[in-house]
């Protein structure tokens, strides 16, 4: 079966000369919650921006649903929902207006949009008549999420979706994502909360300095060897992550504390 997302040798250098992706290759199988993790500047957002069509890779190929995508393509986005690091809403609209706009962009019928909007607004506990600019950070994140799933996408790509939202909403979001994955939607998620990633994701990839370090099933983390000589295994994703991305011997300390 074709992977839903496939990066092959993708290189991206920003205008300021920083190499964000350095031959990144990985693939995302269908119907999993895929955790894409790394330190700040590892290349997560650059990868998502390429998928969203905001920027283009310098070399390498990116395929979605088995087809190579090119900067400027838009048709493939019909079955994708995005929550980017950039807020995706017109802040002068209210939630109802914005979801109506998004529904029209995905070619949903007016009746379908109205019914799904009502359900999403209730589910995410959004203020329907208030302009989005007056929403709290968490509410803004929730409206972005609502807009990303209104068209029942086959793939949803989320950059830090749980950042800034309250505990109840976070639980609701995680449950929704797990439910979507169980029904065949592929969920691609970046997060700095490793505990959440480990619990939520069926598969994880650790990216560092624009390259893939590890890709494995979450279930395999605790059985993978830390030290072959001692037969010691990793106790958590956090331990695996720290082991792979931290610099050995680089102890960091503030002199005044």
């Amino acid at each position, binding site marked *: 079966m074709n992977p839903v997302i496939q990066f092959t040798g993708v290189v991206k250098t920003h*205008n300021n000369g920083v190499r964000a992706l350095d031959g990144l290759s990985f693939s995302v199988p269908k119907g999993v919650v895929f955790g894409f993790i790394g330190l700040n500047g590892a290349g997560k957002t650059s990868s998502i921006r390429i998928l*969203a069509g905001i920027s283009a890779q310098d070399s390498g190929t990116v395929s979605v649903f088995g087809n190579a995508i090119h900067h400027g393509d838009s048709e493939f986005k019909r079955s994708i929902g995005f929550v980017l690091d950039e807020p*995706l809403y017109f802040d002068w609209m209210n939630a109802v207006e914005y979801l109506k706009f998004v529904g*029209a962009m*995905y070619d949903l019928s007016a009746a379908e949009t109205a019914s799904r909007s009502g359900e999403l607004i209730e589910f995410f506990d959004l203020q329907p008549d208030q302009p989005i600019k007056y929403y709290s950070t968490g509410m803004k994140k929730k409206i972005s999420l609502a807009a990303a799933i209104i068209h029942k996408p086959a793939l949803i790509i989320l950059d830090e979706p749980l950042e800034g939202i309250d505990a109840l909403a976070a639980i609701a979001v995680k449950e929704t994502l797990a439910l979507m994955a169980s029904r065949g939607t592929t969920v691609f998620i970046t997060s700095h909360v490793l505990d959440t990633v480990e619990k939520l994701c069926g598969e994880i990839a650790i990216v560092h300095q624009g390259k893939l370090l590890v890709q494995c099933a979450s279930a395999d983390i605790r059985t993978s060897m830390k030290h072959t000589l001692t037969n010691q295994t990793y106790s958590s994703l956090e331990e695996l992550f720290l082991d792979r991305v931290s610099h050995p011997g680089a102890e960091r300390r503030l002199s005044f504390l």
Partner: protein
Amino acid sequence: MKQGLTLYATEMKEFFRHPRALHLVPLLLFAAFMMNWIAHIGPQYPVIIAAIVCGLELQFDNILFRSPNEYFILTVYPIDREILVLAKNLAAITITLFCLAASSAFLFYFSPVESAKREITEVILSFLVVVFPLLHVGNLRSIDNPRPQSGWRVRDFVETLWMGGSLAIALIPYLVFVYVIDFPLLCIVYSAGAGAFWYFTSIPKAVNRLGREQLLS
């Protein structure tokens, strides 16, 4: 079609709801003052056209970033770029026409000229001559020189002056047709030609450039 109509409606709604429309107020007040003065020395239409076009500079010159995140919204949804540019341009034409009609009524009220019939004809003809060249330049400028943040900033003021300069150049054919060869009908012929260029050449060019450029990346 549905996407295009939604985008057009969104543009219209945004204009009337956003405080940005207030850019027109100081320009119209200044124009009202100028109308009185200029009526004694020459035609008044340039004052009205200049006030409106400069006040609506963002509708022409910054079509992708009137909200700071607008470009990202327009990128992640499956929107045909041709429909996007076309809808935004058609909304700019509608908004300009609306503002011209409303402000002409307002400004001619203050004008000492008794019959404004000729002046109104001049406003309409000069609008027809300038609108498509300004859209063409504006589309390319929106892609080459995007402003993610806009409002009452120095850069916006500079861009408004730049728009005034573009308008002055775009008005040259009008001056030639009306004042040099005295054949105003040519304005309509010229506008039809400019409109065809805008639709068949300028929009595809902007779409093509939008596909190649990576704005703010």
